[in-house]
């Protein structure tokens, strides 16, 4: 049993966040792309910034026959390619020395028993104190069996004074029942407080800045309600098509790939009430309240409030691109949506009557993710007789690329005539803060090692989001909603999506 060790008095004031604790990170499915492209480069960058704990080991658990030495070399090559900063060989050698490859299939009990023995040895050698962080980076179909073995082998049970945590990579199920099943399997092995569901959008700097913008500034929160906000538009547009992900995307479509997780998370951060404190559960309680207040969309309501579409051939940056149905790996008769637009309502006091418009799509004219708060116009007297001024004020929060915030307002054109034009005040992260922004995975891994779950989705968040999305998908499947619409690649989506806003006298922002 580990003894309780008093806090380190030398640590005070050196970092302003919780310090990551010594641990062993075990990655299941470590030979996949995620480990090479994201996880190991993120850990290396944390090491280069001095943010890793004093003891850290990485055990890569996978089926393929490899050695630790060979796998370190593979990871070294990948890190040199994908790291956001150049790799320092001296640091890499020191960091890589604590990466170990553990060969086993996921359903082999002996593989977990030998893993347990290996972890004990690492604790002894590197002082990782019995702390384990298990990362499910395998195919979701393997999650159940891995969890079962983690429970069966006792690895999911932390020793006194230590912890055992689980990071689950999305998708968290494919619908509400499967999410429930997965969450039940997770809960059978790990308590909710030790479960970290990654939605990498929440690790992005601008997403984190949303709460700061709202709750650290006097001016915005006072206007952040139905009295002043006309509508909210959340856009996640991608220039790219389905690329090499046809197999996955054919089954998921835009609704499950983007709306159920990323966009609903952004909606929650935008619409939630101020939490009582910045503890993980206080923040997540408020997000869940937003999801619970979402007006359900089922049956006819789906036809009236949701547009789904698929791209046909068109032009991106002047180049021909094929239709979705002509992409490699896609069914030529595919009915998968590559675009979704929604009108949502949050039935609570703050947002009564304010439509939240969301759109997400592939093969749109540019890649951009942003949240736009469109404020109501001034009364139609004095300067506001002309209709174009009715939507003069908008606050735009750009999540990616070119992270920043801009505010649009009306200003008088210089000259004798009284002419008013919209102008923009712009804040760019890149312009104001020169230092490179850490990758989302760096922040999220560090938080998981520190036990801070604020930027991770909780079980009830995930399940409420699925319930909402399942209602829409049920209407698509039973035919009560219109069939798929189409849009040419390189355009901003189908006309029906424009009509959706026009019904409220609104229009999509021009990005």
């Amino acid at each position, binding site marked *: 049993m580990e003894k309780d060790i008093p806090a380190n008095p030398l640590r005070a*004031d050196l970092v302003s966040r919780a310090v990551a604790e010594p641990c062993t990170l075990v990655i299941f499915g470590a030979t996949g792309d995620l480990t090479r492209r994201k996880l190991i480069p993120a850990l290396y960058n944390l090491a280069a910034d*001095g943010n890793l704990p004093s003891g850290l080991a990485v055990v890569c658990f996978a089926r393929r026959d490899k050695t630790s030495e060979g796998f370190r070399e593979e990871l070294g090559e990948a890190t040199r390619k994908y790291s956001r900063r150049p790799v320092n060989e001296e640091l890499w050698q020191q960091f890589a020395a604590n990466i170990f490859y553990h060969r086993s299939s996921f359903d082999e009990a002996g593989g977990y028993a030998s893993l347990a023995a290996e972890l004990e040895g690492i604790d002894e050698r590197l002082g990782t104190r019995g702390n384990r962080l298990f990362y499910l980076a395998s195919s979701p179909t393997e999650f159940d069996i891995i969890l079962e073995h983690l429970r069966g082998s006792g690895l999911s049970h932390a020793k006194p004074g230590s912890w055992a945590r689980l990071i689950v990579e999305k998708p968290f199920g494919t619908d509400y029942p499967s999410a429930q099943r997965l969450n039940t399997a997770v809960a059978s092995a790990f308590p909710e407080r030790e479960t970290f569901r990654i939605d990498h959008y929440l690790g992005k700097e601008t997403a984190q800045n949303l709460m700061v913008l709202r709750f650290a500034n006097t001016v915005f929160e006072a206007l952040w309600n139905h009295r002043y906000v006309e509508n909210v538009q959340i856009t996640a547009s991608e220039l790219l098509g389905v690329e090499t992900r046809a197999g996955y995307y054919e089954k998921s479509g835009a609704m499950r790939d983007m709306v159920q997780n990323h966009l609903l998370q952004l909606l929650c951060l935008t619409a939630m009430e101020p939490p009582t404190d910045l503890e993980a559960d206080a923040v997540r309680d408020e997000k869940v309240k937003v999801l619970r207040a979402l007006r359900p969309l089922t049956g006819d309501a789906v036809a009236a409030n949701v547009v789904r579409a698929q791209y046909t051939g068109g032009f991106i940056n002047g180049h021909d691109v094929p239709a979705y149905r002509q992409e490699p790996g896609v069914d030529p008769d595919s009915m998968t949506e590559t675009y979704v637009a929604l009108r949502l309502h949050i039935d609570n006091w703050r947002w009564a009557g304010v439509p939240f418009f969301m759109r997400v799509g592939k093969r749109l004219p540019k890649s951009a993710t942003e949240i736009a708060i469109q404020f109501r116009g001034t009364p139609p007297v004095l300067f506001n007789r002309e209709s174009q001024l009715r939507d003069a004020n908008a606050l735009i929060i750009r999540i990616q690329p070119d992270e920043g915030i801009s505010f649009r307002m009306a200003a008088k054109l210089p000259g004798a005539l009284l002419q008013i034009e919209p102008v923009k005040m712009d804040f760019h992260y890149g312009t104001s803060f*020169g230092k490179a922004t850490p990758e989302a995975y760096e922040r999220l891994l560090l938080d998981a090692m520190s036990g801070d779950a604020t930027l991770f989705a909780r079980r009830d968040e995930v399940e409420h989001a699925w319930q909402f999305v399942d209602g829409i998908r049920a209407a698509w499947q039973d035919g009560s909603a219109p069939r798929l619409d189409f849009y040419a690649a390189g355009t901003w989506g189908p006309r029906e999506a424009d009509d959706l806003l026009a019904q409220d006298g609104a229009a999509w922002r021009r990005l």
Partner: protein
Amino acid sequence: MTVSSTVENISPGLRVEVGEIDRKLGELWSASEAGKVRASLINLVIYSESKDAIALNTPLLAGLAADHAFRALLVQADPSANETKIEAWITAHCHLRESGGQKEICSEQITFRLHGPAAGRLPSIVFSHLDSDLPLCLWWQGPLHPNPAPDLWAQVDRIIVDSHSWPDPAGQFSTLQEIESIGRGRCSVCDLTWTRAFHLRYAIAQIFDHAAAREHLSRIRHVEIRYGAGHCITALELLGWMASRLGWQLVTISDQPVFRQPDGQEVRCTLHDGLSGESCVGDVRFDLGDAKARVERSRSGDFYLAEFTLQGHAPIAQMLPAGRERTEDILLSELGRVGRHPLFWPAIRSIEPLLRGG
């Protein structure tokens, strides 16, 4: 109008009349090419009485602008001059910031040379040329003047000094404390010497994050610190930090001081000035009874190797960033930091008798 795009630039730019500065800066921006963006996060005032101040600080500001946008007021004063004269120049430092190199971010620099009694007009010069609503950081290069003028210091949000070169550190720290009190809580103090040792403090703390090492924290018997030429104050501040954090009391004032731990055990300290290379301080060793710990520069010099060895066990080692010790990097690190240094004054108080002892 000068718009510099390289860090080699040492020209203070276009000479202008003091009363024309705002208008000329306006002309600079209206005439600048599309794709240039003026940015500013702080007002950075640099005051120096060194003859080389403009030549030394202009390239430093040009480099700094790449990572921290500012409006800089570089003031070189020559109080001993006979004539009363004020000269001024303006320039901008631009850097490509975004991927693809489409946008140049520019910071402004206004340079003043104050001759004779005009040197006493520093507050007037500063207040007339601040970018409104932005914090005011004043980097005072060289020894502080005794009897600090309240009209200037009351407006300063952050005073930056570098104590390692002070001839009378005890007196200067006392003046610094006086300056801080003028601001009535507004002004935060930053000693670049303290910032310079941040990564070393971090590496030392990291060793004792490890459970086995933490148990030995109260068993420190001997600390050995090796510092570079002219960096005795840096080593003393490091010692002061340990003493204040671990509750040590100074019992022997000498160049090899001795502290007493809360449990009565003595901690002997050895300070050497033999550190090779250009490092200010970078080799610290601890005798912990049945264990040893050390922090030293790695082979490349880019990292600290922090190592803890329990007798009979293999060492537990970690590499941690050592940071750079160029003044420009230290300043950047300080400007990028939000908030105060709450451990600084307790550390100074812990070693105050040693500072007085020279």
